Structure formats: structure tokens, C-alpha cells
């Protein structure tokens, strides 16, 4: 299959959408190319579904223009549209007594004769679609007996065997477990790459959007607040204001949301580096500790995680070794801490200076917990921490 790239398959200009002439979102100007994976983000009720329903012509726009393949969307007959565009809706469908194969074959509707008989071509399209979503082994199963994840894949296969150039999905990953969520997004990405299909999906997970989308569209307060490649659009401030996040922080470097340590618990020091400390810090933040960490280089994963978690950080520009000055400042921070977690990376010279912090902690009588031990073994310390009375320099339990 030859994939034309570059031309805009869908162009939306000064579109206004809503119900009963009350605009939900207006002033929409967007254009998408073949082979793009577009994620629509926004809080509940912002109009994501409304936008998708207008694009799939389930709802008439209030005003504005939509051009599909250079032709006015409203000028398509229903059958012509069905051959270009397919949908996966949130509506739960479970017709009884349908095999997966029969169900998927319904997608051939726009191509079959007036009795809907399948020709060899149609059979091949159904098999292809099932294989594409990795559901070929489900084909003889009863549709009603499928799990949520399997059903979503089969719904996707039904849409695919309509032979669409544009695929519209409303919340395709809602109600799915992690495995199927990733699988479905993986399938969608493959469709764009291999088949050149334009995929437009509304999503809840900004994390996922950041990682798979070619284009993200942010819908909020009756307008498109931002749209473009996630690398440009998904900046911390924008994401936080999109969802009005107060307790979470979006890290564009990590492409993920973190819950900062706002706990009133005692201070804990993590000596990490080279990504070794990230997991421990998330755990401690979750348990309500205040975090201090250092000394880190500013290109370290631990540094980005610590920042997103709101830790006290001692960090320096990347170089061959840790500066003495930084170490002294770290020692000061250390003296306020309940315990220290040793998550030093093994065998990396640049971090050798941090070894000094571990020794210093022992001198001060601060408990040192090894990161090598199972993280859950921190539990006794953590439980005790809630009963702790806090003194400068040391703590009494």
C-alpha cells in the first residue's frame, strides 16, 4: 500500500459545535494529515466527545467548515462516508449469539450486496482486520463472552474492516487494564505508521498521549487551548492548567504526572544517581515523607523525578565528579533527616563523592537504609516515623 503523506486529509475551519445551537466549543481550526495519531485531551465535559461526534457526522455542527479529503463533509452520502471513516464508540454493544467473526464482518456493510453476503475479498478483509489487532485466535469465540480488553480489540477490528482512511475513537482505553490499554494504543500507532490511517482518539491519560501521539489537541473552556506535537504542547504549566491540577505535577521530560511530596512527615535523605533513586523517592513521597536528595547531576533521571516530586535537591551541572562545595551543603541538609536511603549506583566513578554522605550519616547516628534491601522492608521505619518526635540532628522514637 502506498501511503501518501503530507496532504491534509481533514481540515476544520472556524467550526462551532454544541447542542441545540448552544456552542460547547467554538472557533475550532485544526488540520490533520494522513498517518497521524491525534489525541484529544481535556477535562470531562469539555466537549471532546461532541467534537468527535461532529467529525463522524453523528451531530451537525452549529457553524463552520469541515473538509474530508478536500471535499465538504456534509456532501458525502452516508455510504461514501462509511467507506472513508469508521468509528469506535463508548456505547456498550453486546448483541447476543454473534461470533467474533460475524461481528467483525458487519464492518463490511458498505461493500456487500443488499443481503450482506461476504465475498472472498470481504473474508480476507475480516481476517486482515482480526490479525491487525491480534485477535485472530478469537474469531470463533462468542462475542458476549469476551473480556473488556478483547472486546475493545474486536470493536477496533470491526471498524478497520470498513477500510477507513480516518478512524475516530471515543475513549478507546476507558475501562481497560494496563496491558490492554498499552496494546490498544500500540495497535493504533501501528495503524498510522503502516496503513497511513488518520487516527483521532479522545483520551484521559495525558501520560499516554505524550508518548504515542503525533498531535495533541487540548480542549477546555469552550475552545481549543493548544494543539500541536506533544513535545511542544505538553508543557508542565499547560497540562496542569488544562486539568486544573493542584496536587499533581506534569513533567514534560518524563512525560508523566507525579504527585509531589506535600506530606508533613519527617525529612528523609536519598542518596541516588543514575536513576537508582527514582523508585525510592516515589515510594517515600507516597508515604508522606519530605524528601531531600543529592548530590545529583542535572541530566539524571533522579533529578527530574525529584523535581517533579518537589524534593529539596542539591544538583550540579554534569561533570566528572561531585564538587566539594555541594557535598558540604548536602551534609547540612542531612543533619535534619530521620534516616538516609543509600541508593548509590555501583561502580560509577562520578558518584563516588556521594559515598561521603553515607559515612557522614553514620557519624551523626542517622540510620542508613540500603536500597538493595527490598523496598517494602522500609515499612518498619516508615511506620515508626508516624510516632516520631523530632529533634534537631537526631530523632527519638
Amino acid at each position, binding site marked *: 500500500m502506498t501511503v501518501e503523506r503530507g496532504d491534509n486529509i481533514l481540515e476544520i475551519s472556524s467550526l462551532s459545535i454544541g447542542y441545540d445551537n448552544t456552542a460547547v466549543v467554538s472557533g475550532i481550526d485544526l488540520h490533520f494529515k494522513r498517518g497521524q495519531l491525534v489525541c484529544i485531551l481535556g477535562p470531562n465535559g469539555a466537549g471532546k466527545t461532541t467534537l468527535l461526534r461532529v467529525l463522524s457526522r453523528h451531530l451537525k455542527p452549529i457553524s463552520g467548515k469541515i473538509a474530508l479529503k478536500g471535499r465538504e463533509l456534509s456532501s458525502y452520502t452516508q455510504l461514501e462516508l462509511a467507506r472513508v471513516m469508521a468509528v469506535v464508540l463508548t456505547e456498550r454493544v453486546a448483541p447476543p449469539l454473534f461470533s467474533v467473526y460475524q461481528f467483525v464482518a458487519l464492518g463490511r*456493510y458498505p461493500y456487500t450486496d443488499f443481503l450482506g453476503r461476504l465475498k472472498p475479498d470481504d473474508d480476507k478483509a475480516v481476517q486482515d482486520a482480526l490479525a491487525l489487532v491480534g485477535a485472530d485466535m478469537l474469531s470463533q469465540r462468542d462475542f458476549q463472552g469476551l473480556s473488556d480488553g478483547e472486546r475493545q480489540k474486536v470493536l477496533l477490528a470491526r471498524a478497520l474492516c470498513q477500510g477507513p482512511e480516518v478512524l475516530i475513537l471515543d475513549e478507546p482505553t476507558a475501562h481497560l487494564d494496563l496491558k490492554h490499554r498499552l496494546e490498544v494504543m500500540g495497535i493504533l500507532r501501528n495503524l498510522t505508521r503502516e496503513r497511513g490511517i488518520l487516527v483521532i482518539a479522545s483520551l484521559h491519560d495525558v501520560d499516554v498521549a505524550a508518548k504515542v501521539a503525533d498531535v495533541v489537541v487540548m480542549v477546555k473552556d469552550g475552545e481549543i487551548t493548544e494543539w500541536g506535537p506533544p513535545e511542544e504542547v505538553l508543557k508542565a504549566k499547560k497540562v496542569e492548567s488544562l486539568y486544573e491540577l493542584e496536587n499533581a505535577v506534569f513533567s514534560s521530560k518524563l512525560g508523566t504526572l507525579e504527585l509531589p511530596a506535600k506530606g508533613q512527615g519527617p525529612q528523609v535523605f536519598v542518596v541516588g544517581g543514575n536513576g537508582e533513586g527514582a523508585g525510592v523517592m516515589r515510594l517515600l513521597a507516597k508515604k508522606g515523607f519530605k524528601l531531600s536528595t543529592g548530590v545529583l547531576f542535572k541530566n539524571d533521571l533522579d533529578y527530574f523525578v525529584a523535581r517533579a516530586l518537589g524534593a529539596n535537591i542539591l544538583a550540579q551541572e554534569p561533570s566528572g565528579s561531585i564538587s566539594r562545595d555541594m557535598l558540604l551543603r548536602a551534609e547540612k541538609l542531612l543533619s535534619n533527616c530521620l534516616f538516609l536511603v543509600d541508593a548509590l549506583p555501583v561502580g560509577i566513578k562520578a558518584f563516588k563523592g556521594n559515598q561521603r554522605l553515607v559515612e557522614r550519616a553514620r557519624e551523626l547516628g542517622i540510620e542508613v537504609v540500603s536500597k538493595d534491601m527490598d523496598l517494602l522492608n522500609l515499612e518498619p521505619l516508615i511506620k515508626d516515623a508516624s510516632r516520631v518526635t523530632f529533634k534537631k540532628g537526631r530523632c527519638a522514637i
Partner: protein
Amino acid sequence: MKPAVTFSLLLVLVIALSLVNLVYGGVSIPFERLLDILAHPGDGVDSIILWDIRLPRAIATILGGAILSVSGLLLQVYFRNPVVGPFILGISSGATLMVSLVMLTTLFLKLPFHSPYITTAFGMVGSFLVVAVVVAVASRVKSGITLLIVGLMVGYMCHSVTSILMAFAEKQQIKGFVLWQLGSFNGFKWDEIGLLFMAGVPLMIMAYGLSKPLNALLLGEDYALSMGIDVRRTRMALLFVACALAGLITALAGPVAFIGLAVPHMARMIFATSDNRILIPGVILTGALVTSLCDLVARNLMSPVELPLSAITAFFGAPVVISLLMKRRVKL
């Protein structure tokens, strides 16, 4: 089992049962004589019983069962609701109202055209008035649920007028009316059979023509639209066919209960499919078979008293549906 085999089997059963219906009854006709009488109609009692009573009744039963079942299937698919039947949209109530005007009041006694067909004619007028209301509403509202509620409300309104008429009616009139309300294929005339055939068969063929969009509608109107169906036009066609079928049979035989609700389920179990291309011929045969069987029981169980057909269909049919559903464990 292949659908073709099942179809043939059902067809054989329908024919066999109809033959039983022809020979068996208050007066039994020996099977050997049956063919003779059919080939050479005469003036004998046997011949009159067969040609004027049993044969029209057997044919009406077959057609009526088929028509009710197709109507029920179409509406079940359209509303995506398994407890919907042909009378859900108030069709039987409309017919009942008009018939009650004839049977319970003296309004029409003075009419010059009073004839034995007057009940039928008024039943038909009543059914089609309701059909007209339903189709008119359907062209305006989008949601099937709204339509369903409108149908129910129209039904209640008709019913209330009917009950007022009953309050004023004579005892004797009420008995006749109540029996009509229970539905029966008794007393069909040949020209009524002709009407049933001429109107019913084309409508059932139209229903078969709708089987492809019907399959898509199993996924709901939104998906159907995305697959290229003109949902509005399909909905109008579907409702027209379903209501016209139900109206036709109600006018001629009264509101025969349960067949239209139960037979689609039986056919789904027999053919183990939801594919309407198989189910439409499937319910025609199953409907004919079940209705013939019920009529046989209704005529002979307490002979010479004939039991109301609706009583038999519901009393014996409901447990069958329940057991089929339990056995298959199908969520509907």
C-alpha cells in the same frame, strides 16, 4: 445444523401439523378422505367443515403466526429490547378501541353498510390510525425510547376510552367483546384470507429486504449510521412494515398475545444466531408452527368448548421461552 436443514425440518413440521389441524377436531375427518375432499369439493358435511371452516382457519393460523412473529422480531431488533412485542406501540389498543365502538355501542347500527366485515374494517382503521401516529412521531424524534413511551401512552389513552365504553355496555355485548380481545383465527372467510395473503406476504418480503440494515442496527443507531445506513429512512421503513403487519393481523384476528414476543426468542435459540437474514425466514416458519400447535390445543383440549388462543399461547409458550433462555444462558 445448517440453516437450510433446519428450514426444511420446520417446513415439514408446519405442513404435518396443518394436516392434523385439518383432520382433527370436533368432527374428525379420516385422513384418506382428506385428499379426496380437497380435490373434489362437494356438498357433504365433511366438505363444508373442511372448506369453510378448517382450511381457512389453518391457513389464517399459519399466516397470522408468521406475520406476528416477523413484526415482533423487527421491533425487538429496532428497540434492542427483548421484551418488546408487536403491540408495544399501541397498535392493538387502537384496533380494540375502534372495535369496541362497533361491538359495545349502537353508534353504527344505523349505518347503511353494516356488514359482517364491519369489525374487521374498524379494527383495521384503528390499527392504522395508531400506525400513522407512531410513524409521524418517529419521523420527528430521534430516540427509540421516546417512541416507545409515546406508543405506550397512545395505548393507555385508547384503553381508557375502551374501558369507559365497557362500563356503559350490556353484559352480553361485553362477553363477545372480551372474546374478540383474546384473539382467534376462527371464522376467517376466504376473502379475508386473500387480504391477509395479498398484504401480508409483500410486507414480509419487505421485512426480508430490511435484514441487512437490521443486522447493523443490532449495534445501535450510532454504529449503523457510521456503517453507511440512512438510519432515518430505515427506521421509517422498519416501523411501517412492523406496524402494518401487526395492524393487519389485529384487525382480522384480534390481538393474539405472546406469539410476536416469544417466537423471535425461540427462533434465535433454534438457529443459534442473531443474523436477521436467517431469522426472518426462521421466525416465519417457527411462528407458523407454534401458532398452529397452539390453535390445535385451543380447539381440542376442552372440546367442545374452544379455549381462547391467547390463553394457550401464553400459558404454554412462556415456560418454553424461560427454559430456552436458562439453558442457553444468553444475555439478551
